[in-house]
């Protein structure tokens, strides 16, 4: 007779797995990867490969030799961190900087906390902000799209629309005259702008969003609340003083906003658990992003905003609970 297996219920499982989710996100990022290779050519490929390989390597090495646990790099989370890190960097970044970034992302941002699932901050963003502050020169030289298909380190560089706007406004130029200097909104939508590898084509990122929503990898709460907040906040500023503050569409389509809202703020590990919490988190990110972009020293604030809100996630989780059954005693009537 067979020996029976005994275990507590439930006895069936949905079949969902960590791997499926991680590779799902990677698939969702492929359109953006394609777009960045289309616009930046070789550099985009080199940077992406370098980041992915070094992240996976560091995770493996740290697990094997420092933590002495079984490496779990195949779950795809390290590769994803690498991919997203690469998507946040200029495509002409020297490889040694990419390697430092990967080490920081995986070593400090993730494994120091205990690896997958334990990190408070988004590892890829830890890596990126660390680099941004450490190597401000290299991290702010953005290759011009479509001109550097085969150039890597010596690509011709230009400013991102956000830094054009920031510099211009700082020098007292008006929004309308500056808008003329940057690509049109439709170009921004399809990605013809200077910037980091993954943030150029809003449309590619949106395709990824739709894919992830359909596969139920993420829910709408975080991306929508971020984008809506940015739209509303920058809209108000714009209405108050149109020549001093750029409009909502400009803010939404430029910089890493889409990438951040769709792929980085949604990182399971470093975002809140309850839907209400996610919305608070998203609003926080939106507000901080605009504040940094408009009033701060940096032209771009999405990375900082996400990291800052990551810090608040434990508090949000503690005080914002999912809606509990039975809290509202009677919901009789409609619905």
């Amino acid at each position, binding site marked *: 007779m067979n*020996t*029976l*297996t*005994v*275990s*507590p219920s439930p006895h069936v499982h949905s079949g969902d797995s960590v791997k499926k989710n991680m590779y799902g996100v990677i698939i969702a990022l492929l359109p953006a990867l394609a777009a960045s290779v289309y616009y930046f050519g070789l550099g985009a490929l080199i940077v992406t490969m370098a980041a992915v390989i070094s992240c996976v390597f560091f995770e493996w090495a740290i697990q094997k030799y420092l933590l002495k646990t079984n490496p779990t790099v195949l779950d795809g989370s390290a590769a994803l961190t690498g991919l997203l890190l690469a998507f946040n960097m200029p495509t002409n970044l020297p490889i040694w900087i990419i390697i430092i970034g990967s080490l920081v992302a995986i070593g400090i941002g993730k494994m120091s906390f205990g690896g997958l699932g334990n990190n408070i901050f988004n590892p890829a963003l830890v890596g990126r902000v660390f680099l941004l502050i450490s190597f401000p020169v290299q991290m702010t030289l953005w290759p011009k799209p479509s001109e550097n298909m085969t150039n890597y380190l010596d690509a011709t560089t230009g400013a991102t629309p956000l830094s054009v706007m920031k510099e211009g406004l700082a020098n007292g130029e008006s929004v309308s005259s500056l808008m003329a200097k940057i690509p049109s909104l439709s170009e921004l939508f399809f990605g013809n702008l200077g910037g980091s590898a993954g943030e150029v084509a809003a449309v590619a990122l949106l395709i990824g969003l739709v894919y992830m929503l359909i596969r139920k990898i993420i829910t709408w709460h975080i991306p929508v609340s971020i984008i809506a907040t940015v739209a509303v906040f920058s809209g108000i500023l714009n209405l108050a003083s149109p020549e001093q503050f750029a409009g909502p569409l400009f803010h939404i389509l430029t910089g890493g906003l889409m990438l951040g809202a769709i792929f980085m703020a949604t990182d399971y590990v470093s975002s809140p658990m309850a839907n209400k919490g996610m919305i608070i988190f998203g609003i926080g990110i939106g507000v901080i992003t605009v504040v940094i972009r408009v009033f701060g020293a940096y032209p771009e604030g999405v990375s900082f905003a996400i990291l800052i809100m990551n810090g608040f996630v434990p508090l949000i989780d503690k005080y914002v609970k999912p809606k509990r059954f039975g809290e509202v005693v009677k919901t009789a009537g409609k619905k």
Partner: protein
Amino acid sequence: MNVVLITIISLGVLGTLAAIILYFVAQKFKVFEDPRIDQVEEVLPAANCGGCGFPGCRAFAEAMVKSDDISDLNCPVGGAETMSAAAGILGKEVAAAAPTVAVVRCNGTCDNRPKVTNYDGATSCTIASSLYGGDTGCSDGCYGLGECVDACNFDAMYMDEKTGLPVIIEDNCVSCGACVDACPKDIIELRKKGPKSRRIFVSCVNKDKGAPAKKACSVACISCKKCQKACPFEAITIENNLAYIHDDKCKLCRKCVSECPTNAIHELNFPPKKPKVEKVVPENAE
């Protein structure tokens, strides 16, 4: 005016002011807190293990200071030494509690007790116990999932990989009882340490009748009552088909040990028996 003078004066005034104000305020707002609490806390081991039944050493210290009769308070970690030190501070008496140590009362090793099902749940004895009696025929024995080991804060336990049973490292055990509480099956017991750490106990908790017990595990107590008859001191009782040796009555004569047909009675730390010496071990004859 001279800077030095100004300095001295301003500082002096300030200092005096501070002293006077502090003095009067302190007088006015005096609150009494028994200083002995601190003193007692100082002699406690600061393990904060809760073995005494209080939430941490300070709470225990407070309880000691507050209660008149401290005979039922005991810090198992610190043992008699600590207790008498603390009692000394308070000028109270302690009844010296006999030192105890944890013993594992199950010998159902993988060999003695064949598995009849596979357990595929979380690694926790309590969780397994909410599900069933275990993956062997014995529904009272050890699950071997090591919840007791996790509960021990003093590195006094480990799981023996071969037998699948927990083992107590006597030297480390401070008899805090955490493992006893952790085990869902009451397999672990705190027993008197005994002279020279010698102990005799029934290493089985199976409450089945003889035949099923024997079928489930080859070293189970089958409640044959032979030990009970053998014991000259009436230290053994049998209840629910299980023999139990009361450590306050047991004189460690070892008669029962050889009687047991399934070798369920264990003796610890005795010198190897010389063949065929039927004498009471001298130092226990009182």
